[in-house]
Each structure stands twice: as structure tokens, then as C-alpha cells.
């Protein structure tokens, strides 16, 4: 099981504490490949991509429009 985590330091949380999940690019339960872009995060005005840490089945834990911070786990990859 690998966490889909927003990397620490992806943005400066001292300036902008929170962002949101702008889009999921796979459905909950979909197969994904390692390194694929699975989600878009929006922080203030900027859009950033989140990639899958491993191949496997994606379980979404923070839905679209959910509020996130650096370090937040937004999903899991079940590597089977």
C-alpha cells in the first residue's frame, strides 16, 4: 500500500496554508501506473500535478474540491 501524498515543500505553506484538489484524473478504484499524473492540485492561482507513487489500484480519500496541505494523503495505491 503506497500513499498518494502531496509532497512537503510543493508550495510554501507559510504563505498559502491550503490548496484544493482541482481534478482527479482516474476514477476511484482504477488501475494506475507508477509515475502517472493522477490528480491536479490548485494552490491560490497555480495548478500542480500529483503523480502515482506506485502501480496498482487507486483509492481516492480526498475528493475533488477537498482542502489539502503539503503532506496531506489524498489517496492510496493498492499494489496487490
Amino acid at each position, binding site marked *: 500500500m503506497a500513499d498518494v501524498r502531496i509532497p512537503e515543500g510543493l508550495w510554501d505553506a507559510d504563505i498559502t496554508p*491550503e*490548496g*484544493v484538489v482541482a481534478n482527479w484524473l482516474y476514477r476511484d478504484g482504477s488501475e494506475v501506473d507508477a509515475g502517472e499524473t493522477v490528480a491536479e492540485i*490548485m494552490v491560490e*492561482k*497555480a*495548478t500542480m500535478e500529483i503523480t502515482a507513487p506506485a502501480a496498482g489500484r487507486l483509492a481516492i480519500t480526498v475528493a475533488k474540491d477537498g*482542502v489539502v496541505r503539503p503532506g496531506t494523503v489524498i489517496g492510496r495505491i493498492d499494489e496487490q
Partner: protein
Amino acid sequence: MEPSKDQLLWMYAAMAKARHYEDTMARAYMEGKTPKFDIGAGLVPGEMHLAAGQEPCAAGVCVHLRAGDTVTATHRPHHVAIAKGVDLNRMTAEIYGRRDGLAGGRGGHMHLFDPAVNFACSGIIGESAGPATGAALAARLQGSDAVAVAYLGDGAANQGAFHEALNLASLWRLPVVFVIEDNAWGISVPKSRSTAVPDNSVRARGYDMPGVHVADNDTLAVFDAAGEAVARARRGEGPTLIEVQTYRYYGHFQGDPEVYRPKDEVARLKARDPIDRLRGHMLDNAGVTEAEADEALTRVRAEVDAAFEFARQSGEPAPEDALEHVFA
């Protein structure tokens, strides 16, 4: 041409007012847009193009104008509207989309019209040039010595409308001044990658009119160039093209991620802030006291704050008001 002490204080006040306006608008615009930035949400929806940094172009030109002179501005119009004397309360209410706005909320930030001071603007690039030329033609036909000023961004100097208007204005020797605000960027595209000449003022030669380049966002140099251009227009000697190298502190629009812009550019530009430089000049060389400058600052900030309060207190238009004013 040297500005008088009164003219210096007028320009300083107009620039400080415009700056405080844009900074206040930037905050108001973000109300209701965090943590999720949705361009259509919040207190002030829609696109928002702010002009902080570009104040010399507004104040250094409009200080030479009268209420009867015409100004046509761009999609980034607030600083010019302020310098031309547009009703600040009603302008702010318009940008808030409220009932008491200049157009009752129909036009918004890119479509500000105040016929009391002959001000108009448009969200279409280059479309300030034709109408200013026409206002100048009207002045001629009406036997008035009024002049017209068209504001354009540097990107607009690559539009057909700009070139056609320059030719027409020169051909008919119309009393119009074309002011290009060169903020170095057409949204994300740098001028060096969009424009075949580094300095648009050379394009005046192709239309047989004077072309003046003002470097480094220098308010006094804008004052000098515009003073001569406006006087020349009033004398019936025809149009002038002025390009002002200016700065844009904010993004193209609020919400612009500015991925294209060097990270340190704005800090570098702010170190040469034109309002600070003008204040330094007034105090050092023109006999303006700290107290006089501060009094101007306090006064214009209070006017801006009052305008935003006016807008906040103004009611929403009725939905069916949308059907009114399609025709005169």
C-alpha cells in the same frame, strides 16, 4: 518641460490613489476565492487586470488634460480612469457589479464609461485607437481645441487597428496622442518575442508623426513628452506616438499563475518604484514638504477607501435590469 509644484503634487496624488486602489482591489477580489480560486466566485467576479506600477503613464499624461478632452483606455483601465477623474464611487460600484455603478453593473471592470469626463475603455486589444481618433475628428469638426488620448498596451501595437488609426490620424492631422504602455508582456509573451522592433516609438516614422520613447517608467519624462504632444495636438499640428517603458507588478489578470515570468522580476521593478521616485524628487528638488506629500497620501487613500465602502453598500441590480439600455 518642468512640472510646477502643483502639477507634481497632482501627479503624486493621482499615482498614489491609483496604487492604493489597485492594492485594495487585489484584496477585495480574493474575498470568497480561497482556498479554492474560482474566477466566477466571490465579492468581485470575472477577470481583473490591475495596473500597479503603470501609474506614470496615467498621471504624466492626464495632468495635461481637461475634462473636455477624451481618453480611451484598455482592458487595464483603473489607473487611467482615476487620473482622468472618473467618478470613483460609481466606478468601484460598477466593478462590484452593483446598482450604483457607472452602468448599473452591466459593463464591469473592462467596460467603464464616464461621459462626464469623456472616458471610455474596451476589453478588445487595440480598439482604443480608432475611437480616440474619432473623438479628435469630432473636436475638429466642432471647432473645439479638445484633444484625445488613446492608451494601448505594447501588445496592441501589433494589431491592425493601431496602424490604421495612426495613418488616419496623421493623414488628417488630428489632435490625438497615442500612448503605448509598454509593460514588457502581452499576457505571457515577452515583447522581444512578439514585436519586430524593440521600441514602438520608431513606428511613428512610418506614419509621418513624432515618436517619443520614455525609458524607465520615469514620471517626469512622461510629463515632458505628453506635455509637448498635447500642446502640439491643441495647436492643430497633428498626432504624436509615445511609448512609455513601464512596469506591471501584478499578473496579466488576478489568477495568472505567472509561470512565464522570472521569479525576481517584480522585486527588481519595485526597487525602482515610480511613486517613491517622484516623492523623492518632489522633496529634494521642488520644495514639497513631507507634510504636503503625506497630506496628499492621506487624502487620496481616504477617497479610495470611501469608494470601496460605497460599492460594498450599494445594492445588487435586479436580474431583469439586464434588458434595459440595449438601445439609446
